């Protein structure tokens, strides 16, 4: 049953990721990325990480992707024009990528395929995560708050109108 659910969510992930690459229009890519993120939340639930799954849906598929869609619509982004790729890159890159991917897949399946992830063995309760986050990882947590503050200020400065900032300076 878990394997079936894993394969179902994984198929949505793989399909969404390929669709992101195949589509020309950025809004379609954004929607398929939202599908990937929602399916990943399902994978997190299978792994027993309920809180991470909730945060994935709220923060990633909610806030961040809304920001992306908002910018796409704000800038009125149309279809991207295709540029000619170099033949050498295609001739060398595609076989190289296939070889590398198959090699990595073989190694991963060979050397870690025996261990199984027991479902629900590690309940990711918010209580346990909060204990870790606010006790063991308190300093990184505070540093990320500074990072967020800097990001907010940077976004405001970068996205503000040039004449407005020039007026403030002058």
């Amino acid at each position, binding site marked *: 049953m878990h394997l079936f659910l894993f394969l179902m969510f994984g198929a949505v992930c793989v399909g969404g990721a390929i669709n*992101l690459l195949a589509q020309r229009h950025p809004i379609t890519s*954004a929607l398929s990325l939202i599908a990937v993120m929602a399916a990943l939340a399902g994978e*997190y639930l299978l792994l027993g990480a309920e809180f991470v799954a909730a945060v994935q849906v709220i923060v990633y598929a909610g806030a961040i992707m809304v*920001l992306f869609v908002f910018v796409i619509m704000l800038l009125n982004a149309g279809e991207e024009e295709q540029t000619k790729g170099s033949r050498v890159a295609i001739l060398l890159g595609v076989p190289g990528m296939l070889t590398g991917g198959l090699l990595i897949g073989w190694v991963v399946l060979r050397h870690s395929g025996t*261990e199984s*992830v027991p479902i629900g063995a590690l309940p990711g309760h918010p209580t346990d995560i909060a204990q870790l986050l606010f006790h063991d990882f308190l300093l990184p947590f505070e540093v990320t708050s500074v*990072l967020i503050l800097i990001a907010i200020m940077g*976004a405001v400065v970068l996205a503000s109108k040039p004449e407005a900032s020039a007026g403030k300076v002058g």
Partner: protein
Amino acid sequence: MVPSYVPLSYYLLLSGFLFACGVVGFLIKRNIITIFMSIELMLNGVNLSFVAFAAHWHALAGQVFVFFVMVVAAAEAAVGLAIIIAVYRTRETLNVDQVNLLKL
């Protein structure tokens, strides 16, 4: 293989596939917003392997790292999209091939 268990390697392969899709999109896409979304796809792939390893090694710290990755991704998205808006305002294009000078 016990049917109700999913091997760790399956999660790792899915995570690697998502990361590879992100890398390919980063390289072949020409729209700057789609390139940004490819970066988000890479971060998601890494998050999946974090959570899978957390479940595998019974270490909840792996899930905490996912939150830090999400925070960094949110900050990066905010700043990056602001940069995209600034670039679009000066150049009127989203094609990265035409954004080849730091200064106009």
